[in-house]
């Protein structure tokens, strides 16, 4: 009887062994790319490759529409059902880390030594997220336009000064060849405003919030540099150089391509489509208004949720996804800037001599992260509203003072957002 029992147990164990050996622990992952066929295909490929590459973990992905992704994550954090792996927009990460939605990312940091600065998400001196790509903004122009208007071609080493930039806009307007000199994409009143326009403020020495303490916006968003920026910003619309907030998506998507605008301030995600229709398009660096020339940095990145019970598995997946071949594949498919020079060299657009090579240098040399603070999610909205109001004719000083008050009140309400004041 005893022998029979032992035999049966051994049989059962041997039958179960092959399954036990291949049992993978499931890791849930949320991604913001639902509806983006190309992106979904790539991320699914990485997940599939990872699942096949080892026997410990199995990543199961759920994609969300980008427009509602952040709300879904915040709701899930409240309800206590966050997945193991999340992706997070760079400037939002400090908020999610501070709110306790994310935990530090434990990966071998030597892997990301060569990554573009904008792709690394640090909060409180700890790495929380890492991106496979970055994005960059440039001034789109036609080489022929520069020649016709007698403008020199700015370079990263010698960008246009603020005066040269404004003079270029005036020359374009005075030529009478364009409906407007500049398309700023004013229709997109979301994260585009701080991402795209704060660099003009930084370049004058101002800022959205004081980055030394992150406890106030006083003096940086309403100081002399900010007032000067605000007046220049307002003049763009008063002088008729750029359409205001009533600009339509149609103007933004077709205006430069159809020759209605002489210049366009736009991201690299529109570059491939523009190249297809405008033979002599050139991508120029941001102008320098006196305190350096900047563009915004930081795009979507991967991190681990605070509630994950398998952070080592989640980190293993993220490390796996950081291979150059995947960075290059993403770049080739959706046009974004790969995080490393070695991956850039593998791409069609960002390799040496490639049509978008300029963007890699822009991202490497000009990119500055938006304020790295949990309060940024509020500051971003306040800044957007202030810029829209000023564009619509509001008093510059009063508007910026009000914005400072709103930002400071929010920081106070949240006890300084964890910064050591």
């Amino acid at each position, binding site marked *: 009887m005893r022998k029979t029992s032992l035999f049966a147990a051994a049989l059962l164990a041997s039958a179960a062994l092959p399954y036990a050996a291949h049992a993978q622990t499931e890791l849930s992952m*949320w991604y913001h790319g*639902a*509806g*983006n*066929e190309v992106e979904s295909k790539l991320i699914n490929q990485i997940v599939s490759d990872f699942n096949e590459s080892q026997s410990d973990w199995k990543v199961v992905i*759920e*994609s*969300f*529409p*980008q*427009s*509602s992704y952040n*709300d*879904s994550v915040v*709701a*899930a954090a*409240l*309800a*206590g*059902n966050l997945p193991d792996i999340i992706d997070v927009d760079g400037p939002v990460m400090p908020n999610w880390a501070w709110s306790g939605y994310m935990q530090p990312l434990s990966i071998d940091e030597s892997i990301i030594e060569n990554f573009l600065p904008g792709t690394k998400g640090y909060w409180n001196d700890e790495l929380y997220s890492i991106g496979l790509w970055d994005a960059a903004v440039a001034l789109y122009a036609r080489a022929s336009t520069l020649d016709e208007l007698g403008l020199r071609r700015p370079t990263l080493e010698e960008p246009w000064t603020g005066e040269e930039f404004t003079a270029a806009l005036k020359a374009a307007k005075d030529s009478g060849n364009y409906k407007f000199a500049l398309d700023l994409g004013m229709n997109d009143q979301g994260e585009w405003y701080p991402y795209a326009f704060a660099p003009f403020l930084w370049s004058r020495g101002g800022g959205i919030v004081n980055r030394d303490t992150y406890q106030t916006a006083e003096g940086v968003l309403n100081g002399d540099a900010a007032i000067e920026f605000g007046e220049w910003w307002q003049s763009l619309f008063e002088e008729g150089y750029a359409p205001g907030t009533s600009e*339509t*998506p*149609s103007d933004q*998507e*077709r205006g430069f391509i*159809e020759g209605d605008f002489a210049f366009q301030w736009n*991201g690299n*995600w*529109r570059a491939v*489509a523009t190249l297809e229709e405008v033979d002599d398009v050139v991508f120029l660096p941001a102008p320098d208004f006196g305190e350096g020339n900047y563009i915004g940095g930081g795009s979507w990145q991967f991190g681990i949720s605070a509630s994950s019970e398998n952070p080592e598995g989640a980190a293993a997946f993220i490390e796996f996804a950081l291979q150059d071949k995947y960075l290059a594949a993403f770049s080739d498919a959706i046009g974004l800037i790969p995080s490393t020079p070695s991956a850039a060299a593998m791409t069609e657009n960002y390799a040496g001599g490639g049509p978008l090579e300029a963007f890699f240098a822009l991202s490497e040399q000009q990119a500055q992260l938006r304020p790295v603070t949990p309060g940024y999610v509020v500051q971003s909205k306040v800044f957007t509203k202030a810029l829209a109001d000023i564009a619509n004719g509001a008093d510059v000083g009063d508007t910026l003072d009000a914005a400072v008050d709103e930002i400071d009140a929010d920081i106070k309400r949240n006890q300084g957002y964890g910064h050591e004041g």
Partner: protein
Amino acid sequence: MATISRDNRGLRLAVRYLVLVLVALVFAFPLVFMIVSSLKPTAQLLSDTSSLRAFLPVGDISLSNYTAAFQRAPIGRFVLNSVFVTVVTVTASLFLCSLAAFSFTYLKWRGNGLLLSIALATLIVPFETIAIPLLLFVSRLPWLGLDGIEYGWLNTYRVQIIPWIADALTIFLFVQYFKDLPRELIEAARAEGASWWQIYRRVVMPLSGPVLATAAILKSLKMYNEQYLWPLIVVQDEAHRPIMVGLGYFFQLNVAWGEVMAYLSVITLPVLAFYLVLQRAFIASIASTGVKG
């Protein structure tokens, strides 16, 4: 004189028709724009918006946006989800809210008036203010399923249905309608020995066609067209997403507006079909409730 009078009548009729046609065009333009735009490539669609071509099926016309839209998102699944959630919610809502209204109107019980006032007061509470507490509540609720008791209603149909069944507006519509029904009918039925349930089922509800239609229309439109925030926070898997959350699939960095219009045209179809089938009932119900109002 008679000729002049007839001419005047003709002129008045012509002016009236002209005004009505213009009004009809104003209402039809968005629908026409949506359908026509769904047939154009995005570049042409955007170029055409500056002229009347936006309303005309001219240029490079094809169904390619529909093909692309169906490839981009599981549209059939989203529409089915929305239709299912709408049908179940509306059916349950009509039944339970009419029962509640019946009780408020005909039965005498302590606190009747107070409870009705409290129910109606919820009309002024915006859903956004209770969304988070409700989320926390449903995320911990138990449910007896085939596998026994499980906790948490997230990622289910029931979480999209049950919180929306009872609503003050529907109860209010029924209460107002029931109040206007002749009391003699109820009293006669009581005198004949009918139970309250029999009176509800055999006397009141057969006379409530107009209010049923009105409540069904209002509730259906709300459930089908406006369900965005709630499913956004309680449904994380694609299999249970409704149409309004699905719309987000089409807003990428480079928005394919032609596909957006194709998607909108497709998800409008069930509403249009619903309207066309029940057109007479709608008009009758609106006329009826309008007279009573």
